[in-house]
């Protein structure tokens, strides 16, 4: 449910670090709470992200949630496939359901994120 090689934030995004690139998505917990995703509204390549600030929206039949950036940086790739197949976020939140790739400008921000064990403890408290 919560891969060990990812980092997580309190807004239920995950981060996969590959060098100075971060891949972002939402956690299993987040997609389960939302229910079937019907729209994902993402920024464009070249847009910048600021840690802790909203960078998009994700919407299910019943509710809408903002996406919060776990790190600061510039977007280098957007998962355009989610436009036609938003349900991918539910089906494969850590794989095909990724959202954006970012060149991080401050890798030390990663230190503030949780590892899988801390995140599981965090959501156990929230639920």
């Amino acid at each position: 449910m919560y891969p060990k090689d990812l980092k997580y934030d309190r807004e239920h995004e995950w981060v996969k670090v590959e060098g100075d690139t971060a891949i972002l998505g939402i956690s299993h917990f987040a997609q389960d709470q939302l229910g079937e995703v019907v729209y994902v509204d993402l920024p464009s390549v070249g847009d910048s992200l600021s840690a802790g600030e909203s960078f998009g929206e994700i919407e299910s039949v019943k509710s809408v949630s903002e996406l919060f950036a776990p790190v600061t940086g510039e977007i280098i790739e957007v998962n355009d496939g989610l436009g036609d197949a938003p349900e991918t976020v539910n089906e494969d939140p850590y794989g095909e359901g990724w959202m954006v790739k970012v060149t991080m400008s401050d890798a030390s921000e990663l230190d503030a994120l949780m590892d899988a064990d801390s995140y599981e403890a965090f959501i156990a408290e929230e639920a």
Partner: protein
Amino acid sequence: MSEAKRTPLYEEHVALGARMVDFAGWDMPVQYAGIIEEHKAVRERVGIFDVSHMAEFRFFGFEAKDALQRIVANDLGKIDELGTAVYTVMCDADGGIIDDLIVYHTGDLEYLIIANASNRETDWDWITSHLPEQGVEAADESDRTALIAIQGSLALRVVGELAGEDWEPPARFSIAEAVLDTIPALVARTGYTGEDGVEVLCHASQAAALWRALLSFPEVTPCGLGARDTLRLEMGYALYGSDMDRGVDPVSAGLGWTLGLSKGEFIGREAIVRIKETGPQSKLVGITVSEGVPRHGYSVLHEGTEVGKVASGTYSPTLEHGIATAYVPVSLASPGTELQIAIRRKTVAAVVTRPPFVKTTSLNASAS
């Protein structure tokens, strides 16, 4: 706030892994597997819904029909035939909608009313305070009555399996007694999904047995209030509290077709006739958007100026885009009128659309 109330099927929902939410003071399942999946199960096969939170009132006596005729807006003369039913609103003296109801003619001198859960106390107080002192016995049977909706093209086949070989389904908008898998029940050919199907009343103590009997059919999907809402909105069926309330009249709400104005006096008639004569200021219309999901309370704009608010809004699983209802000025109420809806940061194009949004269902296809 007092503790949320539970229907007789609460334990069944929890055992099925439903996500429970508070609805009008009731702890109700909003979804089991997922709203879209449940929605499609109803449109394609058959789904069952626990709607036991709804209120059931019975009225009995020589004066029952005349007394209820003065209280509800539709003409109960339409259901003089035993076992027939009619959809109606109940209004106050200003024409404000107190609730929308189905009235079933269940016995020679007996009527059953099914009302919204959120209005149970209001309705009961209103109706009983307007009954004559003698001639009508009234009973609030909500606590001992379970109500399960079985909806979809396969609904009658499933109910038929439980009712036995000799069973004939009641005609559309009719109600009849039946024994479903040894459980005595009232089966009404009514619903809130736009699909063919029934709503079944039984004693609360037997609800779980009936629920399980229904789920023993592989084609039956348990469905929550989430799918109930998307299904009803695709049909443009009004929801009390979103599409209408005490502040609106049935003419503005698009429910003029339910008014029995020629039947004689009833509460609210004078006010409603006045509104019909002068014409309403605003009307409830259907709206289609191309992107995003419109939700209750979002602004509806015309050429950049706010002209109304979204009453009901959702994503349509059948059409795969957003649909909504809203009260807009009559001059902007014609189908095809171009509007916009402010969906948070974006303003999206919207067009007035005559409901139902989904045109073809098993209801159009079935003969009776």
